[in-house]
């Protein structure tokens, strides 16, 4: 039993007489100071509960299951109630992110179309042709077929 009295081996020493001199007032001042409640001793009472049996309660199990199921049902209901809203929010984020992406791509497409138009500008093409020392073909070297869209298209292997 590891009480403090046992630990400090005070059980071997004589008890302080009631009304006697205290450890500070006595002649032997080298004595250890007593611990609080040093004079209180604890005893262990061994109780054997091995033969005690809990009274069977057949309804308790059912109640527990019911309570659990009810909890699950309530949670499920809550989830069911809140899930559409949550999914709606998630979808909202996604839709608007996609819309922003769509707008960005449309803008990018417009910028590219503009850039293409600028690159195909006749003035720029003429400038490039001049730098490359290109000239208009001699009119005598240009053969006009009767129609560029029908027979001539076939002759020139134009598919459209």
């Amino acid at each position, binding site marked *: 039993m590891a009480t403090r009295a046992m630990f400090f081996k005070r059980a071997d020493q004589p008890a302080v007489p009631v009304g006697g001199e205290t450890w500070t007032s006595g002649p032997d001042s080298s004595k250890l100071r007593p611990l609080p409640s040093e004079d209180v001793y604890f005893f262990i009472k061994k109780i054997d509960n091995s033969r005690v049996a809990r009274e069977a309660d057949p309804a308790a199990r059912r109640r527990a299951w019911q309570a659990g199921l009810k909890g699950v049902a309530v949670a499920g209901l809550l989830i069911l109630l809140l899930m559409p809203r949550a999914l709606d929010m998630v979808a909202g*984020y996604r839709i608007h992110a996609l819309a922003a992406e769509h707008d960005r791509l449309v*803008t990018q497409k*417009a910028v590219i179309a503009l850039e293409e138009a600028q690159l195909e500008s006749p*003035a720029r093409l003429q400038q490039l042709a001049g730098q490359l020392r290109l*000239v208009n073909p*001699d009119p005598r070297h240009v053969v*006009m077929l009767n*129609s*560029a869209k029908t027979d*001539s298209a076939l002759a020139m292997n134009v598919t459209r």
Partner: protein
Amino acid sequence: MLWWGRRAKDDRVRERAHPTTRLVWLVVIAFLWAVAVFLRLVQLQVVSHKTYKELADHQQNHTFRVDAPRGCVFDREGHVLAMSVPADSVSIDPMLVPDRPLAASILARALGVDRDDLLARMDSAVEEHRRALEQKRKPKGTGFLWVKRKIAPAEAEALRSLKLDWVEFQKEPHRYYPDGPLASHVVGTVDFQERGNLGLEQRLDQELNGRPGRVSMLTDVLGRPIDSTVSAEAEAGKNITLSIDESIQFVAERELRAACEFYHAASGSTVVMEPHTGEILAMASYPVFDPNQPPGPEEASSARFDYPVSVAFEPGSVFKIVTLTAALETTSLRPETPINCGNGTINLFGRVIHESHHGWGTIPMADVLAHSSNIGAIQIGLKVGEKNLLDYVHKFGFGRTTGIPLPAESSGMVRDLKHWGKTSIGSVAMGHEVSATALQLAQACSVIANGGVLVKPRLILKRQRPGGKVESEPAPAPQRVLKPETAITMRQMMEGVVLRGTGKAARLAGYTSGGKTGSAQIFDLTTKHYTHLYNGSFVGFAPVTNPAVVIAVTLNGVKMFGGVVAAPVFKNVATETLRLLAVPKDIPEIEPPPLTDPQEANDLSIADMSAPPEDLVQLPAPPAVSPTPAPAPAAPQVVSPSVVAVFGPSAPSFEGKTVRAVIEQSLAMGVPVEVVGSGIARQQAPPPGSPLNPGEKVRVLFQ
């Protein structure tokens, strides 16, 4: 025992009751808590509902104006002539700027704005904010400041890379014209708010603009959108497809500009029209402007005038086609009918009128047109009579607008008979006392080219809203105004103008062509007199048998005849246009001889019924043609079209020379040669003296 048993039972009861009491207390506390929450909710959602709703709406709900993208303008082949692209605009909150002088320096450097001006605006905003707080009033407009709007993408990228958290970017639509000045008078311009203020942009502003929408957006605390409600759907503007052909427009503008610059014309117009449908393939106006740039001090004051549509002028001899058509339809005159041109003099109601050039005796009516005899035209006009002449002037569409969808179209001027003077019949017969636009001249010429049907000019082919169906522009109903045989006769007579008359410079290689030149003195409204400057015009078509294209060219304020200044423009534009339209050639490809004597093109109509001014009879010196092909300049170099046509380089003679001598000579002259064989040059193609096209080689055969 009993006592003990009762006591035990009471203990069990007490033990059982004890947790129930605690539960009751718990329930009571929970209830009170719930009541407190409920009361708080009532206070929040019922009592202070309005206040918190406003706060929540302000924080979470944002209503945006969704701008409808402005429609694009395309040419007939689908090339973009105008389109809107979102551009970044930069703004700041001066209150949030940590160091204003530094911020002004950074922004000035990144965006090219005036630093001091920006700093002054920022300081002013901050000062105003401080004053408002001192006076305990709500500061107005101090938390927002535009720095620069619609900046270039490169500027935006550079500024974003600085990661300045006090700089805000907003998207605003910006109108771009990728071809710059090309067709700028037709397409027009928009102002800063993207409202059309010129050309089609102005006339079709409502259709191009579309309808803006509104969207209410629910955002989270970070400003990310969660949900949105479209209260009004944005309706994009319609895309407009024009009948303009970008390539033909480019050629028309290039040739017109070259001619105007070479002949120092104040302005000029070219209209290229398909005569059967009335589709305008090109409409050029000089001077030009860049619609991407706002009007500046360096821009010519008249640069934004749409000359072919808005500016009417006295057409001069071009108008003789109306006189002669009226004669064919209303009198017994035929092309071969002799007309007495009085050797260049006529007495019209007591007023003696002289021809501007040497007079003609009695010549066929076809030659009156070919040589543009004013006396002959007056004689024919007298035979037609005032009423018939005026009737045919109206039939050709003069005196009223054509209905082309461009703003500020001029109807020209055709006076009623009651306002005609005694000699008006003579003036109108040769194109004075009336005024017309270049577009009206092209429309009138189309009547002859398409067999006698007046077709209204058509500029818009279709409209289409993005994702919507195509709305084809209905063609206006044609109206027959001439007998087909009259139109065919006129075509033949107009071909004579090109073959043997004043319009020789308009002869095409590989195609027949017909037309009429015109040179009309310009009336000075200040001095109330005719000046010595002229409107030189040419109106023609090609090929003669089945005209595919009608072209009207006018140069205003020149000192030369229309046959000299305008006919070469017609020739170059027609050649390119017919090639682009893949029109089959109807005559052998023989380059017509150049015009050598300017008097051959003298068609001056006698505006003030006096002798022609002296300065009309001299041609300016031809421009020096560089002997060696110069390297291409950075900017497009404009070469006078008429230079090539009339004064272009010709093939030198290499015959009898050695290969070395030929090469040296060709290098010196800048004429590329193709050497075939060795020895002495025996033959060459093209032969000596033949005009050379730019870059064309001379093939020399050595034996």
